[in-house]
């Protein structure tokens, strides 16, 4: 069963065709990675899915419903959630308050406190809970934002470069975190440049190039594809 379905999605910025008739289907329960060179249109595709941009044409279906016309917050309430490329935490607020704001729409009172504690432990941020989020290290900010994103208990989690700026060790830990979430039933779509991460978590990989779906398959199939290697070296049209 498909959870997310993009049908002939198009987006122009002036004369620039950033998303070109993209068809993409995400199955329930899979971890799907989106890769491609800079400017391939990966982040734009995320913004279309989230409703920050509106497509020129095409449809977005989530759990069978057409959500193309919905506002962002309404899509989130249906079970989408995102971690942005640049960590989007509430910098001036404490770590605890960041999580409280994410969790308060589902829990109240003592239950809210318990959920915050549980999430702090899951993210390894217990000792930082009173810290101002802006003072966290880059990796910790990434985790905090992942924590906020997953606290909504989304059916589909979108991760835009979740390991950017992380050490190999932190990258591996993030991968393990994603796998744990997936084991609990969360479907994940991740944009990622780090091939070690993609290899660790991805069940399927889609390569985006010049706004189009260029290739799709398992990581081994993608790595073996000479055309994919060529676009990464900038020789697609050579």
């Amino acid at each position: 069963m498909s959870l997310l379905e993009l049908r002939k999605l198009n987006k122009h910025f002036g004369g620039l065709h950033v998303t070109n008739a993209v068809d993409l289907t995400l199955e329930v329960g899979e971890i799907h990675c989106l890769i491609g060179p800079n400017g391939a249109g990966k982040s734009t595709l995320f913004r279309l899915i989230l409703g920050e941009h509106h497509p020129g044409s095409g449809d977005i279906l989530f759990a069978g419903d057409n959500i193309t016309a919905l506002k962002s917050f309404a899509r989130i309430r249906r079970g989408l959630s995102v971690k942005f490329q640049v960590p989007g935490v509430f910098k001036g607020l404490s770590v605890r308050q960041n999580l409280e704001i994410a969790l308060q729409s589902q829990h109240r009172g003592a239950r809210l406190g318990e959920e915050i504690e549980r999430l702090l432990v899951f993210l390894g941020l217990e000792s930082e809970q009173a810290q101002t989020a802006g003072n966290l290290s880059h990796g910790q900010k990434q985790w905090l934002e992942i924590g906020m994103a997953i606290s909504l208990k989304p059916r589909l989690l979108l991760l835009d470069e979740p390991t950017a700026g992380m050490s190999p060790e932190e990258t591996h830990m993030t991968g393990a975190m994603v796998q744990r979430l997936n084991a609990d039933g969360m479907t994940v779509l991740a944009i990622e440049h780090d091939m070690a991460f993609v290899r660790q978590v991805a069940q399927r990989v889609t390569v985006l190039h010049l706004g189009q779906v260029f290739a799709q398959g398992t990581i081994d199939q993608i790595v073996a594809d000479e055309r994919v290697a060529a676009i990464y070296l900038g020789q697609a049209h050579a």
Partner: protein
Amino acid sequence: MSGFVSFFRRLEGPQTVGRGPAFWSLFAVVMMIALAYPLFSDGYTVGNTVYFFVWVFIALSLCLIWGYGGSLSFGQTAFFGIAGYGYGVLTLNFGSAYGFTLVALVIAVAIAALFAVLLGYFMFFGRIAGVFLGIVTLAVTLMLERFMAQTAGPEWHIGSARLNGFNGMSAMPPLTIPWPGEPIVLFADVGLYYFVFGLLVFVYLALRILMNSSFGNVIVAIRENPERAEMLGYDVRKYQLITFVIGAALAGISGVLYTAWGQYITPSSMGMTAAALPLIWVAVGGRSDLTSTVVGTLVVLAAFQALTIYGSQYALIFMGVLLVLTVLIAPNGLVLGAMNWLGRLAARLTQRVS
């Protein structure tokens, strides 16, 4: 019962400075001094103090919208003026019998809030933000000033209330509380003092509870990062609109109280200078906290008045300098900076003692 307790627990929280027995003891002492103060002063001075209190509501409205919400409204005076004129028109037409002045207060504030619903809807649902919000709100208040200034002719009246153009309206009745025997007329001295002070304490505590609630959480989240707030499922526009309307009502309270206090209101109350001054009080005090806004506003107002009385025509220039200094030295506000410094000092001292 537990809901009741947790409601009042929100008097303290991450969004408001001041917590624990030390803060609330100080609060109680200040309350007692403020309640006893009219007994040791003369009517004129008390009336003058009421004048200061009157402005605190519009300062709190900016604290809410700008300090907590992150949207700079340059036109809170528009709501001040609408409510002030509203009170004038209503009471000049219907008088002050049967407690109507209190009803007029509520209606006038409601009219200002309703206007904010309309204006705010177009601004926030049109996704106007940042400096443009300031420009639109400033334009609105200046437009209202211009409009009211040209209503001098006899054709400009609502019922029996003449609008009077640049000279403004006057001679509306003061707030009057119906009382068996003889109604209590709140002239600008002790009577009005207790009324306004009571209202101020109520609003201050209510805002503390509001800002430490889940609603307040979302408001500061929108200030910090509106995109993230939306991506947590919050309809940012709705929250911004509600905050804007509450702020407009607070500015409206200032407008009504000001009109009732001096029994006059003029278009210049919505002019450029009037619009800029609250920004300075709030910025100097510390816009992101209720307590520092109240303290800062009262201190700056008192200093400003002292300057204008004791022969300096440079009071407005002093206000400008004060704003520049605040931005340079303590961008979050001088009072808030001092309060945080005192808090750290107290924490260090208690640590050393224990």
